[in-house]
């Protein structure tokens, strides 16, 4: 039973948004298949398939790792694992952000053909990102084996960080997707913001290099969120301040995203 009306009261909008997310979760097999087919399609007919991702990441980290270790006067054994991890995790975040902007506009044909929960498109973007991440994790594992590194039990602390990431990813995708379908300038704006964030966030440079100014880092949302997953994988715990800010930024993001999604959900089809 589908009942839609011009009722724009908060209660009605919220009920539909909740329904959207629940239906989206129920359709998880569809979202997984869509994400998987996206990857398969991208590499259809190529010899290595999605392992091109693994290969290009490996080549980039190998060359940049040696180069920047020399530039920063660090030893490769210390720097390269850090870079490998940072690059792969950052790659996941930035792909997610840029794909998020187009998650509805890119599925225009589908959205205008059937009534489908919008959250499916967000889950699809997340699945796609996770699949790419899974291919790149191979590089991290290889680096760890090569340098015989084992982060230890603290690695388990990356799990709560990853859970926060999953929630944030869906929220961010719904948020950017809705704004991106209404204002078509959003993808390039977001792309340049991410580009700047890449340089001001310790991705290729280490947080320690900031010396006494390192206290400012947790206020950078990109750093806080990156660090809660990266630090445990490098064998140390993120500071309490980092975790606190990661949670604060996530709550803000989830709240804002939900607020916007409840209002924009019924309008997205008109904006496409």
């Amino acid at each position, binding site marked *: 039973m589908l009942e839609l009306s011009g009722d724009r009261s908060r209660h009605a909008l919220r009920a539909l948004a909740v329904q959207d997310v629940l239906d989206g979760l129920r359709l998880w097999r569809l979202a997984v298949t869509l994400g998987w087919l996206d990857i398969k399609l991208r590499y259809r007919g190529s010899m290595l398939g999605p392992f091109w991702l693994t290969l290009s990441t490996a080549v980039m980290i190998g060359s940049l790792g040696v180069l920047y270790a020399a530039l920063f006067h660090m030893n490769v054994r210390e720097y390269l694992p850090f870079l490998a991890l940072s690059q792969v995790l950052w790659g996941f975040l930035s792909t997610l952000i840029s794909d998020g902007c187009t998650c509805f506009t890119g599925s225009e044909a589908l959205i205008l053909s059937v*009534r489908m929960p919008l959250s499916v498109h967000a889950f699809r973007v997340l699945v796609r990102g996770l699949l790419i991440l899974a291919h790149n994790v191979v590089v991290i594992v290889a680096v760890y084996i090569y340098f015989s590194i084992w982060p230890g039990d603290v690695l388990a602390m990356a799990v709560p960080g990853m859970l926060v990431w999953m929630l944030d990813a869906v929220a961010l995708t719904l948020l950017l997707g809705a704004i991106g379908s209404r204002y078509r300038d959003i993808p390039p704006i977001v792309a340049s913001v991410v580009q700047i964030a890449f340089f001001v966030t310790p991705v290729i440079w280490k947080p320690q290099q900031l010396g006494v100014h390192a206290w400012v880092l947790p206020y950078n949302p990109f750093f806080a969120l990156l660090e809660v997953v990266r630090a445990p994988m490098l064998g140390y715990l993120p500071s309490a301040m980092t975790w606190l800010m990661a949670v604060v930024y996530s709550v803000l993001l989830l709240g804002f995203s939900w607020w916007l999604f409840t209002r924009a959900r019924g309008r997205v089809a008109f904006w496409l």
Partner: protein
Amino acid sequence: MLRSFRRLRAKRPADRSEARVDVDHLTVFFPLYHGNSRSLKKTVFAAATGRLGRDAQHRPGVQALRDISFHLRSGDRLGLIGSNGAGKTTLLRTLAGIYEPVEGRVRVQGSLNALLNTQLGMNPDQTGRENIMLRGLYDGLTRVQLARLAEDVSSFADLGDFLDLPVRIYSSGMMVRLAFALATAIRPQILLMDEWILAGDAAFLDRARARLEGMVRGADILVLSTHDTSILQDWCERVIWLDQGRVREDGPARDVLRHYQQAMTPGAPVDDVPVDDVPVDDRSVDVDGQVQDPAASDPKEEIPQGGDPQGGDDESTHRDAGPSIPRAGLHRAGAGA
């Protein structure tokens, strides 16, 4: 709607009779954003022909549908007719739940499938089989059911080896067959179709009709939108004529189609009217004199079912009003008798 898809699979026979569509005072408004979205502009202009220039000139958008009301029950076959931009596709999309109403209400009970365009939301780069799988997953089918769906669709659509090739390289006829087979394989209770179905070749149309008629006989609802009056004449018993987003006329297919054709061809030559097809007691026979039987004009279609049960009297109740009032209670053509 998803829930109803599930219910359909679980206990379809019991649910069949429940299919219904209620549309009350539906209004859909298209926002118009200047210059920042080409695709949106395209959509709006497609939906708004004839309305932008006049009354909506100073508004930041277009009223694609205005105060539409109608009700459908199991067994109803509704046709939508009207010029380009009259709101037919927008209405179908609103029934499908893709566009949400700005005012008024749409209630749809029963599983629903919309064949709004040949692409059917398919990804052209993916193979026919992959697209079938996605559609099946959307309907929550299990692995076994997915295999059966692929089997059913490929045999009806007659695609052969093309099933494992990207949909992009299909001919338009193959696209139509695939989309139609797919949308009807899932046996929706309510089927919404846009006019692209006419892109099929004649042989396919016959088979499509056999399959569709089977579905409609099972007490389902069909809503079909097209320019082709002969198709409407054959497939639908009730027609709503949309004009500029409003219901201009709502009534038995033959009457509405005749008036529509009169309006479309002003000053057309007076034709011989098939005797068995026009009620003798028609009050507006003088106006109707020029009518050209829509079905008879299309050679490839068979002769219209002349012996339509409702002969005349009750039809006149909803025909003479020009731009008719949406009939809330009317759900079957000629049901008044």
